[in-house]
């Protein structure tokens, strides 16, 4: 802990030498994250592909929903790997340089992959944790940025890095003089997390090609990165955007499509992002136990690969294995319990376990 405190003392000293600092209350204020971030991610990505007009499932379905029977681990331990990423970020200060200003954030980002054995026992197989200082390069002078970059470079081996808040990306969008950088912080941190997840997953899958892999959330295809195109890999999102229109069926939008989806039924697999992916919805839980018709449903995304055709048989099997994942649930511990897969929940917990507590962060951030 002393070492971390000393590192941040050095970093903050350099920042303070080049920027006038208006510290956050208590030196570091945690930025609270909405539970709808997953829905927001889906919404951002779905903007590129709002009109859904094809199936990618073969043979082409002539039905609107299909009953799925669960296949339990004891019958087939189908899913072996589970990955989730998580983050916690803090507003540290506003840095002023003449008429320009930038918020300064600190983010703790983590991701982990769990393995589940034949007995159902989970173990951590990969874990990654990093800390980032974020500020907008566009709002500070080149010299200031360079000095801050230099000092952060010294601590790269300690997993502490600098990230440009004003850098454009598909998630955060373009940054100009009018962009509210304080609000941008959260999306930017989520973007960084997705990059870390990608790195971790690809590294891992290159080494371990056996077994099916579930990544929490959507796979982020299209402009958002095509590198998740891995076989035996699916993304499972607990919340989904309702901006898409399903033009070729009676129901027009996502809400209409899903509110009538019966218990233990799935939809056909729709083509997403120029048919680079297929996605479908699966109802895990009975509506009578839930407060909202779209609860208890997961959105499942799978890359559309030549080597892995999206057949009804495959999708049924994946769906059957997914339904069995509904027990146990983190009910009482996570508001998204109705659509949460327990091993994914545990992967998130594992990633979070390595985070420093708010007390520690507030202790090491001292602008005085």
């Amino acid at each position, binding site marked *: 802990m002393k070492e971390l405190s000393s590192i941040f003392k050095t970093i903050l000293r350099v920042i303070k030498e080049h920027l006038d600092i208006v510290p956050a209350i208590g030196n570091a204020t945690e930025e609270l994250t909405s539970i709808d971030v997953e829905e927001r991610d889906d919404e951002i990505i779905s903007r590129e592909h709002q009109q859904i007009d094809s199936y990618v499932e073969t043979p082409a379905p002539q039905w609107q929903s299909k009953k799925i029977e669960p296949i339990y681990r004891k019958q087939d331990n189908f899913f072996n790997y589970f990955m989730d990423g998580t983050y916690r970020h803090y507003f540290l200060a506003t840095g002023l340089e003449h008429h320009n200003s930038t918020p300064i954030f600190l983010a703790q980002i983590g991701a982990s992959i769990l393995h589940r054995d034949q007995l159902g026992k989970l173990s951590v197989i990969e874990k990654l944790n990093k800390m980032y200082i974020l500020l907008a390069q566009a709002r500070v002078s080149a010299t200031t940025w360079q000095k801050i970059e230099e000092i952060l470079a010294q601590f790269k081996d300690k997993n502490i890095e600098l990230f440009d808040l004003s850098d454009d990306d598909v998630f955060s969008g373009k940054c100009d003089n009018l962009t509210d950088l304080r609000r941008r912080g959260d999306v930017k941190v989520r973007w960084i997390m997705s990059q870390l997840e990608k790195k971790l997953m690809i590294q891992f899958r290159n080494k371990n090609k056996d077994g099916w892999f579930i990544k929490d959330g959507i796979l982020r295809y299209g402009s958002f990165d095509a590198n998740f195109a891995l076989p035996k890999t699916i993304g499972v999102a607990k919340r989904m955007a309702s901006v898409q229109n399903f033009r070729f069926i009676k129901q027009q939008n996502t809400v209409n499509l899903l509110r009538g989806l019966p218990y233990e039924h799935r939809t056909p697999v729709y083509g997403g992002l120029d048919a680079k992916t297929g996605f479908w919805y699966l109802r895990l839980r009975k509506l009578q136990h839930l407060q909202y018709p779209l609860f208890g449903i997961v959105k499942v995304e799978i890359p559309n690969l030549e080597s892995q055709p999206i057949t009804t048989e495959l999708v049924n099997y994946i769906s059957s294995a997914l339904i069995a994942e509904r*027990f*146990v649930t983190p*009910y009482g*511990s996570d508001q998204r*319990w109705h659509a949460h897969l327990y091993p994914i929940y545990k992967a998130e917990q594992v990633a979070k376990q390595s985070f420093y507590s708010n007390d520690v962060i507030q202790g090491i951030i001292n602008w005085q």
Partner: protein
Amino acid sequence: MEDNISNEVIGRSSATERYPNTSDKFSFWITSDKIVNPFDIVESEHLRESRTYGLVTMLEHRTDASSHLANFISNNFGSLAEEPNTPRMGATLAKVNVMMNTNDIYMPIENEKNVRFSNESGIHIALGIDTMEDKRKIPAGLIKMSNEEEAVVYIDSNYVLGPESAHINISGISGLATKTSYAMFLLQSLLQSIQSEDIAVIIMNVKHGDLLQIDEPPKELSEEQKGLWIKLGLEPKPFDNVHYFLPRGKNRQANSYVLPRNYEIFAYALEDSVTKLDLLFSNIPDPTETIDSLIGEIQNGFGTTQFKGVTTWNDLLNAEPLAKNGQSQKIGDIRSSSVGKFRRHLRRIVQTRTTGLFTDQRTRMEQNLSERLREIEGGHTYVVDIAKLNDTEQSFIFGDIVRTIYELFAESDETFNLPEKVIIFVDELNKYAPAGGKESALIEQILDISERGRSLGVILFSAQQFMSAVHSRVTGNCATKILGRSTSSEVNMPDYRFLDQDLKMSLTRLAKGELLLQHAVFRQPVKVIFPKPAYRQND
């Protein structure tokens, strides 16, 4: 200190925001394939390469389920048809009471320190046995831990026989043949470990013929039991130099369930009992102390002209000065009605309800017990059978023994050839020194032994079902307490305050032959097993 790195790590200490480790307690999680139970002794790595020893008091399993409802919902709202694809994550935690640290560091155990089972050497360090002089060590049982590690437990004779502290009390529900067996094991252990010629033992046989053949070898003692004796460094053998005293029955024969090979019969004539009349009336309520006053008058007047001609119980009851022509008489300031009450009780005790213990005239074969006990010798064991007697007679005899021995030692000087220590063992102590009971001559006598016997060399080994049923000053003065299985209501009585709440409930689960041993030297109680008696028991 013997290195214990060979014992594998079984878990790591765990301190949380809500459940911190303290100077007195710490917790550790247990790796999934290890079995740990209450009363296991473990050691944790600690600061400056020291080790902290502790006693496991309770285990608990925690999961990430926020409530039982979460588990219900997790099973598809109470469905038994499906089973979890991923079992809920959980950890078993052991709660530990700190016993000692090898460097006297009582800073709390930090998080994630390796925890191991202690080996025998570690257990001895933890209990303070390592600093005991060999000549003071009395084997008191065997600790058997969950990893099959075994350790002989020794108690310190300085805390059993004095001078530091003394007395042993054994509690536990009946029917498990544990309390008496343990007391007899401990006596045998003590006689084999300490200079036995300096110690005399008086044993009260209160049940059947349980203790009337202790000088004979058992018909059968399994190899396993023999092995246990040997493991404890003891020889499985019966008691030596045993004398049996059996009460006289109405037919002038011994009034006992079993007749030992050699025995003497004892009885009480009036002349043997005058100075003990107060003991005879121990169980009689005497709120105005008139009976006590009358006993004083009789004791002062016996042998004088006032009681001329009174030599037997019958004389005392029916002749002057207490009665004349069948009428009770006033004596001194004591009214005739009070004398009448005294006579009624005395008649009941020594004539109408007696089992034959009281006689107007002892024959030459019938011994005066207290006189025989005044000849007590070190290295000898005296068994007094009271199993067939009624409660009043049992109390009287026990009181007589206690008073005789106490006075013998209190009055002794170097001209007496007395053993250094006398141990008196009695079961069902609650009969003689009940909790909340009114003061009586017998209780006073027992309290004298409890509180002052240590300095005189008179030691009480006692047993009863419920410690709470015994006078707290008696049990409070016992430096060693042995607890067998008990009921939950009993262990929640104030007498068990010395036990951690978690350990109390473990008492209700003790198996036959398992005991909890709390000794003055030990920092925590330990669970022990012990071998079956190596003498002949009731066939």
